[in-house]
């Protein structure tokens, strides 16, 4: 079971949302329980992953009323809405219904996707919103609507009337980062994640937790999904400094998550400098070989990566190519037939590391310095010089006189001489 489902809150106390939101919801439900309801429906709107559906579940549990759900995948046409209407308003005990209602909660998830158009050419659903209005007018049970885009919903005909019969609440753990609720959100979520991590035996340190919190905020579902990526116990905290953590994490996501939208969002969230896509692709190139053992997959993955690399380098002509390249690179895992389910510890790109640590490595150092000295007399760059190094090795073997002149004039050391073997 995915972590967001396994650890979905079951009590109001477990929900990480400001108290006034929870209190308002409770008092709305209480009014239903006392048969004093003035607003028949509750509209919960807000960005994804903040807990709108979770709230409906908690209400159902706390008030001990079954939740009748019409979820996002159902078709929202008039006929289907009618069935919901029946369930909402259906009377059952002619004599007792006054005492027994409400006996269920109706949840219409993603209500902003209900179509009003009666023209099948414009989406096929028809009359859904007017039917929804009828439901709310006649219901004997609390109706909860959730939606992302309240403002878009508002513009639909009949929506205004629905809104006037409802309480509309924005669900968000905080409005601004500067407010107290934000600190509570961070603190509570961190606590919760630590609990889940230890329960699931996921090894992750606080700064890594903070990083996924910050990256996904306020989407708690995404935060929990991201926690999954640390499963398998890596030693990231020892091996990688903070600045490398985010790239490590997005690389792991690229190979493992299987959610392209999520990968792309993470890439944009990193908000690195203009060199970031290049750096990211170096990471992918370094680690693809560990991730994919099937030669065909490896070939296909690298083929895509090399194409992305070309677009990246063409950004000097058309800057937007840079973002294409990052998105293409982010999608490489979808080109593989097999996904590697095993944990892989990702390495910092050796190519970059070697480029910057040449001076620390004596063998590399000697090759470099001798190339530089030879390049100087030849009016050429030292890396070009490597192609002509054979000539000096040849001279060393066959023309002692010239070779000792070269050594003297260029002050070539014994160690550097060895590099000419």
């Amino acid at each position, binding site marked *: 079971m995915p972590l967001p489902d396994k650890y979905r809150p079951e009590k109001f106390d477990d929900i990480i949302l400001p108290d006034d939101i929870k209190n308002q919801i409770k008092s709305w439900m209480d009014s239903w329980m006392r048969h004093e309801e003035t607003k028949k429906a509750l509209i919960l709107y807000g960005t994804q992953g903040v807990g709108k559906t979770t709230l409906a579940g908690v209400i159902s549990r706390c008030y001990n009323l079954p939740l009748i759900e019409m979820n996002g995948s159902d078709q929202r046409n008039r006929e289907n809405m009618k069935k919901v209407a029946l369930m909402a308003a259906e009377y059952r005990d002619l004599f007792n219904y006054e005492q027994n209602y409400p006996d269920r909660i109706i949840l219409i998830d993603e209500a902003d996707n209900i179509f009003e158009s009666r023209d099948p050419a414009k989406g096929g659903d028809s009359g859904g919103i007017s039917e929804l209005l009828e439901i709310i007018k006649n219901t004997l049970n609390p109706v909860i609507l959730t939606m992302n885009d309240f403002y878009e919903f508002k513009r639909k005909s009949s929506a205004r009337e629905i809104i006037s019969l409802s309480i509309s609440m924005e669900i968000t753990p905080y409005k601004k980062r500067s407010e107290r609720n934000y600190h509570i959100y961070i603190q509570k979520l961190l606590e919760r994640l630590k609990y889940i991590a230890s329960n699931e035996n996921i090894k992750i340190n606080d700064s890594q937790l903070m990083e996924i919190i910050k990256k996904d905020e306020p989407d708690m579902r995404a935060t929990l999904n991201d926690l999954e990526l640390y499963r398998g116990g890596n030693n990231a905290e020892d091996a990688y400094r903070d600045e490398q953590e985010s790239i490590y994490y997005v690389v792991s996501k690229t190979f493992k998550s299987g959610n392209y939208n999520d990968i792309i969002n993470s890439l944009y969230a990193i908000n690195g400098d203009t*060199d970031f896509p290049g750096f990211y692709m170096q990471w992918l190139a370094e680690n693809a070989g560990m991730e994919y053992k099937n030669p065909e997959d490896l070939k296909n993955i690298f083929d895509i990566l090399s194409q992305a690399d070309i677009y*990246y380098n063409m950004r000097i002509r058309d800057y937007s190519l840079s973002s294409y390249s990052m998105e293409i690179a982010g999608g490489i895992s979808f080109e593989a037939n097999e996904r590697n389910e095993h944990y892989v510890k990702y390495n910092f790109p050796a190519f970059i590391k070697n*480029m910057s640590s040449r001076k620390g490595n004596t063998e590399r150092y000697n090759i470099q310095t001798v190339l530089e000295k030879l390049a100087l007399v030849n009016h050429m760059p030292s890396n070009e010089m490597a192609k002509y190094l054979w000539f000096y090795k040849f001279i060393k073997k066959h*023309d002692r006189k010239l070779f000792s002149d070269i050594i003297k004039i260029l002050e070539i050391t014994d160690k550097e001489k060895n590099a000419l073997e």
Partner: protein
Amino acid sequence: MLDIWTEKYRPSKLSAVIGESENINRLESFVKDKNIPHLIFAGPPGTGKTSTAIALARELFGDSWRDNFLELNASNERGIDIIRENIKNFAKIKPSNDLGFKIIFLDEADHLTPDAQAALRRTMEMYYNTTRFIFSCNYSSKIIPPIQSRCVVLRFSPINKNEMVSRLKAISKKENFEIDDESLDAIYEISEGDMRKAINILQAIKTTGKISPATIYQIAGEINKNEYKKLILMALEGNFDEARSMLDKMLVDYGLSGIDIIKGMHSSIRNEQIAYRQKLQIIMALAETEFRIVEGGTDNIQMDALLAKLSYIGSEIN
């Protein structure tokens, strides 16, 4: 002076530079006007880019050319800041000639990142009164358009056979030894139009004392070594990780370019006994990789992709 023939016989006048006569004509007319625009010299190694730049400086500045000509290269002096610092210090000092400008020769300009190139563009403008830039590169496509548009681009191509052979003959005459036509043909064949390589081979066979096409091909074997063959075999056998670290050594320690390595691989398998279908696939993979690098791909990523493809071709054989 060291007895290295490539330097000893470097032309000191523009008219002595072999290769594109059109380029030389244009540059000579600049010399006549005593002014030059910013220039880009684009072409493969050993085709006379540096020689042309030095000869141009000598003709413009005479004996004081060394004081008025700064040679920098983008790939050695890592970091655009160091380059800019060098440029600033050089450009600040008043030119010691009556032309009123000095020349900065920036080799391997295509190795600079686009951001570094953009920074350089401002430097070019700042010092235009006293300095002219000559950018040398393998591919002008890797130079950002704003710099290209400020420069006159001159293209250099591999040296043709007649010119190369006659230059080699002239050198052998000065060095007092005889060389037959077949040996000259062999040198041309191996050099692939790279004059520096050709002169290196000429000097190498002179030191052996045995001047014959056979010796020349033996030396050629030493140039290519078996490194490239080893790299191909490793990949074909599916040792992708090992092949990658060998590639890494070639790219980083020896500073070879992706194209160099592809060319080396290509010549090393040409006469190998490999099933024809696989050979065809390998050659196509090499061609595609070279094509992508020329289009602007990053060496190590494109080469990694090549090794992955070779591993796949190898896995199909087995």
